[in-house]
Protein backbone atom coordinates (compact mmCIF):
# COMPACT_ATOMS: atom_id res chain seq x y z
CA UNK A 1 0.00 0.00 0.00
CA UNK A 2 1.52 3.32 -1.06
CA UNK A 3 1.86 6.36 1.22
CA UNK A 4 -0.91 8.21 -0.62
CA UNK A 5 -3.24 5.24 -0.21
CA UNK A 6 -2.49 5.03 3.50
CA UNK A 7 -3.00 8.77 3.86
CA UNK A 8 -6.27 8.62 1.96
CA UNK A 9 -7.50 5.68 4.02
CA UNK A 10 -6.53 7.50 7.21
CA UNK A 11 -8.48 10.59 6.16
CA UNK A 12 -11.48 8.53 5.17
CA UNK A 13 -11.55 6.73 8.48
CA UNK A 14 -10.91 9.92 10.42
CA UNK A 15 -13.84 11.64 8.75
CA UNK A 16 -16.03 8.59 9.31
CA UNK A 17 -14.99 8.40 12.94
CA UNK A 18 -15.59 12.08 13.58
CA UNK A 19 -18.91 11.93 11.77
CA UNK A 20 -19.99 9.04 13.96
CA UNK A 21 -18.69 10.77 17.09
CA UNK A 22 -20.62 13.96 16.41
CA UNK A 23 -23.56 12.91 14.25
CA UNK A 24 -24.54 9.31 14.92
CA UNK A 25 -28.20 9.73 15.92
CA UNK A 26 -28.63 9.29 19.66
CA UNK A 27 -31.56 8.79 21.98
CA UNK A 28 -32.99 11.97 23.46
CA UNK A 29 -33.33 10.20 26.82
CA UNK A 30 -30.04 11.44 28.35
CA UNK A 31 -31.03 15.01 27.56
CA UNK A 32 -34.47 14.43 29.07
CA UNK A 33 -32.74 13.18 32.22
CA UNK A 34 -30.57 16.31 32.10
CA UNK A 35 -33.68 18.49 31.86
CA UNK A 36 -35.50 16.78 34.70
CA UNK A 37 -32.57 16.52 37.09
CA UNK A 38 -31.23 20.03 36.52
CA UNK A 39 -34.72 21.50 36.92
CA UNK A 40 -35.30 19.47 40.09
CA UNK A 41 -32.03 20.61 41.68
CA UNK A 42 -32.56 24.26 40.76
CA UNK A 43 -36.15 24.14 41.98
CA UNK A 44 -34.88 22.74 45.27
CA UNK A 45 -32.36 25.57 45.52
CA UNK A 46 -34.89 28.23 44.52
CA UNK A 47 -37.57 27.04 46.91
CA UNK A 48 -35.00 26.84 49.73
CA UNK A 49 -34.20 30.52 49.11
CA UNK A 50 -37.77 31.71 48.59
CA UNK A 51 -37.90 33.58 51.92
CA UNK A 52 -34.67 35.39 51.12
CA UNK A 53 -35.43 36.67 47.61
CA UNK A 54 -35.51 40.36 48.58
CA UNK A 55 -32.41 40.03 50.75
CA UNK A 56 -30.53 38.33 47.92
CA UNK A 57 -31.75 40.09 44.77
CA UNK A 58 -33.79 43.13 45.81
CA UNK A 59 -32.87 46.76 45.28
CA UNK A 60 -32.23 47.02 49.02
CA UNK A 61 -30.70 43.56 49.33
CA UNK A 62 -27.91 42.89 51.81
CA UNK A 63 -25.61 43.85 48.95
CA UNK A 64 -27.82 46.41 47.25
CA UNK A 65 -27.95 47.29 43.55
CA UNK A 66 -26.19 50.57 44.28
CA UNK A 67 -23.35 48.89 46.17
CA UNK A 68 -22.04 47.16 43.08
CA UNK A 69 -22.41 50.10 40.73
CA UNK A 70 -18.69 50.21 40.02
CA UNK A 71 -18.45 46.50 39.25
CA UNK A 72 -18.52 45.16 35.70
CA UNK A 73 -18.52 46.91 32.36
CA UNK A 74 -21.65 47.34 30.24
CA UNK A 75 -23.69 45.20 29.57
CA UNK A 76 -22.66 43.26 32.69
CA UNK A 77 -23.01 46.41 34.80
CA UNK A 78 -25.85 47.72 36.92
CA UNK A 79 -26.93 49.90 33.97
CA UNK A 80 -26.93 46.97 31.56
CA UNK A 81 -30.00 45.15 30.26
CA UNK A 82 -29.12 42.00 32.21
CA UNK A 83 -29.57 43.67 35.59
CA UNK A 84 -32.89 43.81 37.39
CA UNK A 85 -32.48 47.57 37.83
CA UNK A 86 -32.89 47.97 34.07
CA UNK A 87 -36.11 45.93 34.01
CA UNK A 88 -37.30 47.69 37.13
CA UNK A 89 -36.84 51.10 35.49
CA UNK A 90 -38.86 49.99 32.46
CA UNK A 91 -41.65 48.62 34.64
CA UNK A 92 -41.78 51.57 37.01
CA UNK A 93 -43.71 53.52 34.36
CA UNK A 94 -46.43 50.90 34.70
CA UNK A 95 -46.52 51.43 38.44
CA UNK A 96 -44.67 48.21 39.22
CA UNK A 97 -42.30 48.61 42.14
CA UNK A 98 -38.75 47.24 42.23
CA UNK A 99 -39.82 44.72 44.86
CA UNK A 100 -42.66 43.42 42.70
CA UNK A 101 -40.32 43.30 39.72
CA UNK A 102 -37.83 41.14 41.65
CA UNK A 103 -40.55 38.84 42.98
CA UNK A 104 -42.08 38.62 39.51
CA UNK A 105 -38.78 37.58 37.91
CA UNK A 106 -38.14 35.06 40.67
CA UNK A 107 -41.68 33.70 40.26
CA UNK A 108 -41.13 33.41 36.52
CA UNK A 109 -37.86 31.57 37.20
CA UNK A 110 -39.60 29.06 39.46
CA UNK A 111 -42.44 28.63 36.93
CA UNK A 112 -39.94 28.09 34.12
CA UNK A 113 -38.11 25.48 36.18
CA UNK A 114 -41.43 23.74 36.88
CA UNK A 115 -42.16 23.78 33.14
CA UNK A 116 -38.72 22.34 32.52
CA UNK A 117 -39.22 19.63 35.12
CA UNK A 118 -42.49 18.55 33.57
CA UNK A 119 -41.33 19.03 30.02
CA UNK A 120 -44.12 21.47 29.25
CA UNK A 121 -43.16 23.81 26.43
CA UNK A 122 -39.64 22.61 27.16
CA UNK A 123 -37.75 24.96 24.86
CA UNK A 124 -39.66 28.04 26.02
CA UNK A 125 -39.27 26.95 29.64
CA UNK A 126 -35.52 26.50 29.15
CA UNK A 127 -35.10 29.94 27.55
CA UNK A 128 -37.17 31.57 30.30
CA UNK A 129 -35.26 29.73 33.03
CA UNK A 130 -31.94 30.73 31.47
CA UNK A 131 -32.92 34.39 31.05
CA UNK A 132 -34.41 34.78 34.52
CA UNK A 133 -31.48 32.95 36.13
CA UNK A 134 -29.14 35.25 34.21
CA UNK A 135 -31.04 38.32 35.44
CA UNK A 136 -31.00 37.16 39.07
CA UNK A 137 -27.34 36.13 39.17
CA UNK A 138 -26.12 39.18 37.24
CA UNK A 139 -28.01 41.36 39.69
CA UNK A 140 -26.52 39.65 42.73
CA UNK A 141 -23.01 38.51 41.78
CA UNK A 142 -21.87 38.74 45.39
CA UNK A 143 -24.16 35.88 46.39
CA UNK A 144 -23.52 33.48 43.54
CA UNK A 145 -21.24 30.48 43.83
CA UNK A 146 -20.43 27.20 42.05
CA UNK A 147 -23.99 25.95 41.71
CA UNK A 148 -25.04 29.16 39.94
CA UNK A 149 -22.12 28.92 37.53
CA UNK A 150 -23.05 25.37 36.52
CA UNK A 151 -26.75 26.22 36.46
CA UNK A 152 -26.00 28.86 33.85
CA UNK A 153 -24.05 26.37 31.75
CA UNK A 154 -26.72 23.67 32.03
CA UNK A 155 -29.59 26.07 31.27
CA UNK A 156 -27.71 27.51 28.30
CA UNK A 157 -27.38 24.03 26.80
CA UNK A 158 -31.00 23.31 27.61
CA UNK A 159 -32.04 26.24 25.41
CA UNK A 160 -30.61 24.58 22.31
CA UNK A 161 -30.92 20.84 22.80
CA UNK A 162 -33.90 18.51 22.25
CA UNK A 163 -34.55 18.16 25.97
CA UNK A 164 -38.32 17.80 25.79
CA UNK A 165 -38.70 14.98 23.29
CA UNK A 166 -39.28 12.29 25.89
CA UNK A 167 -40.35 11.92 29.53
CA UNK A 168 -42.29 15.13 29.04
CA UNK A 169 -45.74 16.61 28.64
CA UNK A 170 -44.56 17.80 25.24
CA UNK A 171 -44.14 14.16 24.22
CA UNK A 172 -47.57 13.26 25.54
CA UNK A 173 -49.11 16.06 23.50
CA UNK A 174 -47.03 15.29 20.42
CA UNK A 175 -46.23 11.55 20.41
CA UNK A 176 -44.53 11.96 17.05
CA UNK A 177 -41.52 13.77 18.54
CA UNK A 178 -38.32 12.08 17.39
CA UNK A 179 -36.71 9.83 19.97
CA UNK A 180 -33.39 9.50 18.19
CA UNK A 181 -31.82 12.57 16.62
CA UNK A 182 -28.53 13.93 15.41
CA UNK A 183 -28.97 17.05 17.52
CA UNK A 184 -29.26 14.84 20.61
CA UNK A 185 -25.88 13.35 19.74
CA UNK A 186 -24.32 16.79 19.21
CA UNK A 187 -25.81 18.03 22.47
CA UNK A 188 -24.62 15.00 24.37
CA UNK A 189 -21.13 15.43 22.94
CA UNK A 190 -21.04 19.07 23.99
CA UNK A 191 -22.11 18.18 27.50
CA UNK A 192 -19.59 15.33 27.71
CA UNK A 193 -16.70 17.40 26.35
CA UNK A 194 -17.60 20.34 28.59
CA UNK A 195 -17.47 18.09 31.65
CA UNK A 196 -14.19 16.53 30.53
CA UNK A 197 -12.62 19.97 30.04
CA UNK A 198 -14.01 21.17 33.36
CA UNK A 199 -12.65 18.24 35.38
CA UNK A 200 -9.27 18.41 33.67
CA UNK A 201 -8.99 22.15 34.36
CA UNK A 202 -10.09 21.96 37.98
CA UNK A 203 -7.81 18.96 38.55
CA UNK A 204 -4.79 20.72 37.05
CA UNK A 205 -5.54 23.92 38.98
CA UNK A 206 -5.60 21.87 42.18
CA UNK A 207 -2.45 19.92 41.27
CA UNK A 208 -0.58 23.23 40.87
CA UNK A 209 -0.75 23.79 44.63
CA UNK A 210 0.83 21.65 47.32
CA UNK A 211 -2.28 21.45 49.52
CA UNK A 212 -3.89 18.73 47.40
CA UNK A 213 -0.71 16.66 47.46
CA UNK A 214 -0.08 16.79 51.21
CA UNK A 215 -3.72 16.52 52.30
CA UNK A 216 -3.94 20.03 53.76
CA UNK A 217 -6.72 21.01 51.30
CA UNK A 218 -8.94 18.19 52.54
CA UNK A 219 -8.06 18.98 56.16
CA UNK A 220 -8.97 22.64 55.69
CA UNK A 221 -12.14 22.01 53.69
CA UNK A 222 -13.66 19.63 56.22
CA UNK A 223 -12.72 21.72 59.26
CA UNK A 224 -13.53 25.29 58.15
CA UNK A 225 -16.57 26.39 60.13
CA UNK A 226 -18.52 27.51 57.06
CA UNK A 227 -18.19 24.13 55.38
CA UNK A 228 -17.71 21.52 58.10
CA UNK A 229 -20.77 19.39 58.76
CA UNK A 230 -19.13 17.17 61.36
CA UNK A 231 -16.25 17.46 63.81
CA UNK A 232 -13.39 16.19 61.66
CA UNK A 233 -10.55 17.54 63.78
CA UNK A 234 -9.46 13.92 64.42
CA UNK A 235 -8.16 13.91 60.83
CA UNK A 236 -5.10 15.83 62.03
CA UNK A 237 -4.09 12.64 63.84
CA UNK A 238 -4.20 10.54 60.68
CA UNK A 239 -2.63 12.82 58.04
CA UNK A 240 -2.28 9.92 55.61
CA UNK A 241 -6.04 9.74 55.17
CA UNK A 242 -6.60 13.35 53.94
CA UNK A 243 -3.49 12.97 51.79
CA UNK A 244 -4.94 9.87 50.11
CA UNK A 245 -8.31 11.60 49.66
CA UNK A 246 -6.47 14.54 48.05
CA UNK A 247 -4.66 12.23 45.67
CA UNK A 248 -7.90 10.42 44.86
CA UNK A 249 -9.55 13.75 44.07
CA UNK A 250 -6.72 14.65 41.70
CA UNK A 251 -6.86 11.20 40.10
CA UNK A 252 -10.62 11.39 39.55
CA UNK A 253 -10.57 14.92 38.15
CA UNK A 254 -7.51 14.64 35.93
CA UNK A 255 -8.20 11.05 34.92
CA UNK A 256 -11.83 11.81 34.06
CA UNK A 257 -11.04 13.28 30.64
CA UNK A 258 -9.14 10.12 29.68
CA UNK A 259 -11.04 7.25 31.25
CA UNK A 260 -14.62 8.44 30.84
CA UNK A 261 -14.48 7.86 27.08
CA UNK A 262 -13.56 4.21 27.11
CA UNK A 263 -16.44 1.78 27.34
CA UNK A 264 -14.69 -0.34 29.96
CA UNK A 265 -13.82 2.52 32.31
CA UNK A 266 -16.71 4.91 31.65
CA UNK A 267 -19.09 3.75 34.35
CA UNK A 268 -16.45 3.48 37.06
CA UNK A 269 -15.07 6.94 36.15
CA UNK A 270 -18.47 8.62 36.15
CA UNK A 271 -19.43 6.73 39.31
CA UNK A 272 -16.23 7.94 40.99
CA UNK A 273 -17.11 11.53 40.09
CA UNK A 274 -20.64 10.99 41.41
CA UNK A 275 -19.17 9.57 44.61
CA UNK A 276 -16.84 12.53 44.97
CA UNK A 277 -19.76 14.95 44.66
CA UNK A 278 -21.83 12.90 47.09
CA UNK A 279 -18.94 13.27 49.52
CA UNK A 280 -18.97 17.03 48.96
CA UNK A 281 -22.69 17.11 49.72
CA UNK A 282 -22.32 15.13 52.94
CA UNK A 283 -19.04 16.54 54.27
CA UNK A 284 -19.23 20.17 53.09
CA UNK A 285 -22.99 20.64 52.94
CA UNK A 286 -22.87 21.98 49.39
CA UNK A 287 -26.00 20.02 48.53
CA UNK A 288 -27.39 21.78 45.47
CA UNK A 289 -23.93 22.15 43.92
CA UNK A 290 -23.17 18.46 44.43
CA UNK A 291 -26.59 17.35 43.18
CA UNK A 292 -26.23 19.48 40.06
CA UNK A 293 -22.82 17.96 39.30
CA UNK A 294 -24.22 14.47 39.86
CA UNK A 295 -27.09 15.29 37.50
CA UNK A 296 -24.68 16.44 34.79
CA UNK A 297 -22.54 13.31 35.16
CA UNK A 298 -25.51 10.96 35.09
CA UNK A 299 -27.03 12.60 32.01
CA UNK A 300 -23.73 12.81 30.16
CA UNK A 301 -22.28 9.39 30.81
CA UNK A 302 -24.58 7.08 32.74
CA UNK A 303 -27.79 7.16 30.69
CA UNK A 304 -27.53 5.00 27.57
CA UNK A 305 -27.90 7.25 24.54
CA UNK A 306 -29.37 4.55 22.30
CA UNK A 307 -33.01 3.65 21.95
CA UNK A 308 -34.26 0.25 23.05
CA UNK A 309 -34.75 -0.69 19.39
CA UNK A 310 -31.16 0.19 18.57
CA UNK A 311 -29.85 -1.76 21.52
CA UNK A 312 -31.87 -4.80 20.46
CA UNK A 313 -30.72 -4.43 16.88
CA UNK A 314 -27.10 -4.18 17.90
CA UNK A 315 -27.56 -7.06 20.34
CA UNK A 316 -24.71 -5.80 22.48
CA UNK A 317 -24.65 -4.28 25.94
CA UNK A 318 -25.37 -0.60 25.46
CA UNK A 319 -22.31 0.70 27.28
CA UNK A 320 -19.95 -1.36 25.21
CA UNK A 321 -20.73 0.46 22.03
CA UNK A 322 -22.98 3.43 22.44
CA UNK A 323 -20.71 6.35 23.28
CA UNK A 324 -19.42 6.87 19.80
CA UNK A 325 -15.94 6.80 21.24
CA UNK A 326 -15.60 3.50 19.49
CA UNK A 327 -15.45 5.59 16.34
CA UNK A 328 -12.65 7.70 17.72
CA UNK A 329 -10.84 4.61 18.88
CA UNK A 330 -10.98 3.32 15.34
CA UNK A 331 -9.30 6.41 14.03
CA UNK A 332 -6.80 6.61 16.85
CA UNK A 333 -5.37 3.20 16.03
CA UNK A 334 -3.84 4.60 12.86
Amino acid at each position, binding site marked *: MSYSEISSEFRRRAVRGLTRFWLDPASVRPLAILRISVAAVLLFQALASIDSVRDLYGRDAVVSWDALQSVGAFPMSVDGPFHLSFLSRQLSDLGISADHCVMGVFGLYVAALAGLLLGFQSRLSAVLAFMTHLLLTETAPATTYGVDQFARIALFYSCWLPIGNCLSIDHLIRPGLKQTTTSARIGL*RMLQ*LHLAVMYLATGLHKAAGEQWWNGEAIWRAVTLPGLAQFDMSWLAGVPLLPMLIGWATLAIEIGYCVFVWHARTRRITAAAAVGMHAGIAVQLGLTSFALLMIALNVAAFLVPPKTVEQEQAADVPCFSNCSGFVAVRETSTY
Partner: protein
Amino acid sequence: MNKRNQIIVLLAIGHLALVGLGAAGVAFPDRADGGVPAVEWYRHFTGANNSFEFFAPGVGPQERVRFVFADEQGREWTDDLELGRNREANLSFTTIPFVLAGADDETAWSMLRSMAVAMLRRNPSAVHVEVRVESFGIERKLGDGGEWAIDFPSMQQYRSGVRPEWILLYQLTFNRFGEAIEPEDIDGGMEQ
Protein backbone atom coordinates in the same frame (compact mmCIF):
# COMPACT_ATOMS: atom_id res chain seq x y z
CA MET B 1 -21.99 15.26 6.61
CA ASN B 2 -24.30 17.84 5.10
CA LYS B 3 -23.72 21.60 5.21
CA ARG B 4 -26.19 22.19 8.03
CA ASN B 5 -24.60 19.59 10.25
CA GLN B 6 -21.14 20.88 9.39
CA ILE B 7 -22.13 24.35 10.57
CA ILE B 8 -23.74 23.04 13.75
CA VAL B 9 -20.70 20.93 14.63
CA LEU B 10 -18.37 23.84 13.89
CA LEU B 11 -20.42 26.10 16.18
CA ALA B 12 -20.32 23.43 18.88
CA ILE B 13 -16.55 23.08 18.52
CA GLY B 14 -16.19 26.88 18.57
CA HIS B 15 -18.17 27.07 21.80
CA LEU B 16 -16.12 24.28 23.36
CA ALA B 17 -12.92 26.01 22.27
CA LEU B 18 -14.04 29.08 24.24
CA VAL B 19 -14.82 26.80 27.19
CA GLY B 20 -11.31 25.35 26.91
CA LEU B 21 -9.71 28.78 26.79
CA GLY B 22 -11.74 29.86 29.80
CA ALA B 23 -10.75 26.71 31.69
CA ALA B 24 -7.11 27.41 30.87
CA GLY B 25 -7.51 30.88 32.33
CA VAL B 26 -6.79 32.61 29.02
CA ALA B 27 -7.86 36.24 29.35
CA PHE B 28 -9.29 37.84 26.25
CA PRO B 29 -8.14 41.35 25.38
CA ASP B 30 -10.58 44.08 26.26
CA ARG B 31 -12.01 46.52 23.79
CA ALA B 32 -9.16 49.03 24.16
CA ASP B 33 -6.65 46.31 23.25
CA GLY B 34 -8.51 45.17 20.14
CA GLY B 35 -10.78 42.66 21.82
CA VAL B 36 -14.25 41.92 20.50
CA PRO B 37 -16.84 42.81 23.15
CA ALA B 38 -19.41 40.44 21.69
CA VAL B 39 -17.11 37.47 22.27
CA GLU B 40 -16.48 38.53 25.87
CA TRP B 41 -20.22 38.97 26.45
CA TYR B 42 -20.91 35.56 24.92
CA ARG B 43 -18.29 33.92 27.15
CA HIS B 44 -19.67 35.65 30.21
CA PHE B 45 -23.35 34.99 29.59
CA THR B 46 -22.91 31.34 28.62
CA GLY B 47 -20.47 30.50 31.39
CA ALA B 48 -17.75 29.71 28.83
CA ASN B 49 -15.32 32.01 30.66
CA ASN B 50 -15.31 29.87 33.79
CA SER B 51 -11.84 28.80 34.91
CA PHE B 52 -13.22 26.15 37.29
CA GLU B 53 -10.78 27.02 40.07
CA PHE B 54 -12.85 25.44 42.82
CA PHE B 55 -10.73 25.04 45.97
CA ALA B 56 -7.66 25.53 43.78
CA PRO B 57 -4.75 25.73 44.06
CA GLY B 58 -5.60 25.42 47.75
CA VAL B 59 -8.25 26.14 50.35
CA GLY B 60 -7.82 29.55 51.94
CA PRO B 61 -8.84 30.70 55.40
CA GLN B 62 -12.52 31.47 55.82
CA GLU B 63 -13.76 35.00 56.28
CA ARG B 64 -16.99 36.19 57.81
CA VAL B 65 -18.81 39.44 58.47
CA ARG B 66 -20.24 40.04 61.91
CA PHE B 67 -22.44 42.88 63.05
CA VAL B 68 -22.34 44.41 66.52
CA PHE B 69 -25.39 46.59 67.12
CA ALA B 70 -25.90 49.17 69.83
CA ASP B 71 -29.07 50.98 70.87
CA GLU B 72 -29.50 54.37 72.52
CA GLN B 73 -29.07 52.84 75.97
CA GLY B 74 -25.73 51.37 74.97
CA ARG B 75 -26.99 47.79 74.93
CA GLU B 76 -25.12 45.66 72.42
CA TRP B 77 -26.02 42.52 70.51
CA THR B 78 -24.61 40.69 67.51
CA ASP B 79 -25.81 39.11 64.29
CA ASP B 80 -24.22 37.57 61.24
CA LEU B 81 -24.92 37.06 57.56
CA GLU B 82 -26.73 33.77 57.98
CA LEU B 83 -30.06 35.40 57.21
CA GLY B 84 -31.67 32.49 55.40
CA ARG B 85 -33.97 29.91 56.91
CA ASN B 86 -31.84 27.00 55.80
CA ARG B 87 -28.32 26.10 54.73
CA GLU B 88 -29.02 26.45 51.00
CA ALA B 89 -30.08 30.07 51.40
CA ASN B 90 -27.22 30.75 53.79
CA LEU B 91 -24.66 29.43 51.34
CA SER B 92 -25.58 32.36 49.10
CA PHE B 93 -25.29 34.89 51.92
CA THR B 94 -22.01 33.48 53.20
CA THR B 95 -20.49 33.86 49.75
CA ILE B 96 -20.48 37.62 50.32
CA PRO B 97 -17.32 37.69 52.52
CA PHE B 98 -15.38 35.81 49.82
CA VAL B 99 -16.44 38.37 47.20
CA LEU B 100 -15.67 41.15 49.66
CA ALA B 101 -12.13 39.79 50.12
CA GLY B 102 -11.46 40.10 46.39
CA ALA B 103 -13.14 43.47 45.87
CA ASP B 104 -11.33 46.76 45.34
CA ASP B 105 -11.46 49.30 48.17
CA GLU B 106 -14.31 51.34 46.69
CA THR B 107 -16.51 48.31 46.06
CA ALA B 108 -15.66 46.78 49.45
CA TRP B 109 -16.65 50.02 51.19
CA SER B 110 -19.94 50.15 49.26
CA MET B 111 -20.66 46.52 50.14
CA LEU B 112 -19.95 47.09 53.83
CA ARG B 113 -22.15 50.17 53.87
CA SER B 114 -24.93 48.29 52.10
CA MET B 115 -24.72 45.43 54.59
CA ALA B 116 -24.77 47.87 57.50
CA VAL B 117 -27.86 49.66 56.19
CA ALA B 118 -29.65 46.37 55.49
CA MET B 119 -28.83 45.00 58.93
CA LEU B 120 -29.88 48.22 60.67
CA ARG B 121 -33.19 47.97 58.83
CA ARG B 122 -33.63 44.52 60.36
CA ASN B 123 -32.71 45.88 63.81
CA PRO B 124 -34.82 49.05 64.15
CA SER B 125 -33.85 49.72 67.77
CA ALA B 126 -30.14 49.96 66.92
CA VAL B 127 -28.62 53.40 66.43
CA HIS B 128 -25.41 52.19 64.91
CA VAL B 129 -23.71 49.00 63.84
CA GLU B 130 -20.11 47.97 63.86
CA VAL B 131 -19.32 45.80 60.82
CA ARG B 132 -16.47 43.45 61.65
CA VAL B 133 -14.68 41.47 58.97
CA GLU B 134 -12.92 38.50 60.52
CA SER B 135 -10.82 35.61 59.32
CA PHE B 136 -10.65 32.14 60.84
CA GLY B 137 -7.08 31.00 61.31
CA ILE B 138 -3.79 31.88 62.95
CA GLU B 139 -1.36 34.70 62.33
CA ARG B 140 1.66 33.46 60.43
CA LYS B 141 4.76 35.18 59.13
CA LEU B 142 5.28 34.72 55.40
CA GLY B 143 8.95 33.83 54.90
CA ASP B 144 11.93 35.41 56.67
CA GLY B 145 11.12 38.95 57.58
CA GLY B 146 7.95 38.78 55.55
CA GLU B 147 4.56 40.22 56.34
CA TRP B 148 2.17 38.71 58.81
CA ALA B 149 -0.74 36.91 57.24
CA ILE B 150 -3.66 34.84 58.44
CA ASP B 151 -3.61 31.21 57.48
CA PHE B 152 -5.31 28.05 58.65
CA PRO B 153 -3.18 25.85 60.94
CA SER B 154 -1.72 22.79 59.28
CA MET B 155 -2.45 19.30 60.59
CA GLN B 156 0.99 19.26 62.21
CA GLN B 157 0.33 22.59 63.95
CA TYR B 158 -3.06 21.35 65.08
CA ARG B 159 -1.49 18.23 66.57
CA SER B 160 0.95 20.43 68.47
CA GLY B 161 -1.92 22.33 70.03
CA VAL B 162 -2.33 25.32 67.73
CA ARG B 163 -6.01 26.24 67.31
CA PRO B 164 -7.59 28.61 64.80
CA GLU B 165 -9.69 31.52 65.98
CA TRP B 166 -11.64 34.39 64.50
CA ILE B 167 -9.21 37.27 63.98
CA LEU B 168 -10.43 40.79 63.30
CA LEU B 169 -9.20 42.06 59.93
CA TYR B 170 -10.93 45.44 59.99
CA GLN B 171 -14.07 47.13 61.20
CA LEU B 172 -16.25 50.04 60.27
CA THR B 173 -19.11 51.62 62.15
CA PHE B 174 -22.18 53.04 60.42
CA ASN B 175 -25.14 55.02 61.68
CA ARG B 176 -28.71 54.61 60.50
CA PHE B 177 -28.10 56.98 57.59
CA GLY B 178 -25.38 54.74 56.24
CA GLU B 179 -22.67 57.19 57.26
CA ALA B 180 -19.39 55.82 58.53
CA ILE B 181 -18.69 57.15 62.00
CA GLU B 182 -15.55 57.21 64.09
CA PRO B 183 -15.54 55.34 67.43
CA GLU B 184 -14.91 58.59 69.33
CA ASP B 185 -18.10 60.05 67.84
CA ILE B 186 -20.16 57.35 69.47
CA ASP B 187 -21.63 58.24 72.84
CA GLY B 188 -19.73 56.38 75.51
CA GLY B 189 -17.16 55.14 73.00
CA MET B 190 -16.90 51.61 71.66
CA GLU B 191 -14.78 48.64 72.46
CA GLN B 192 -11.88 48.42 70.01
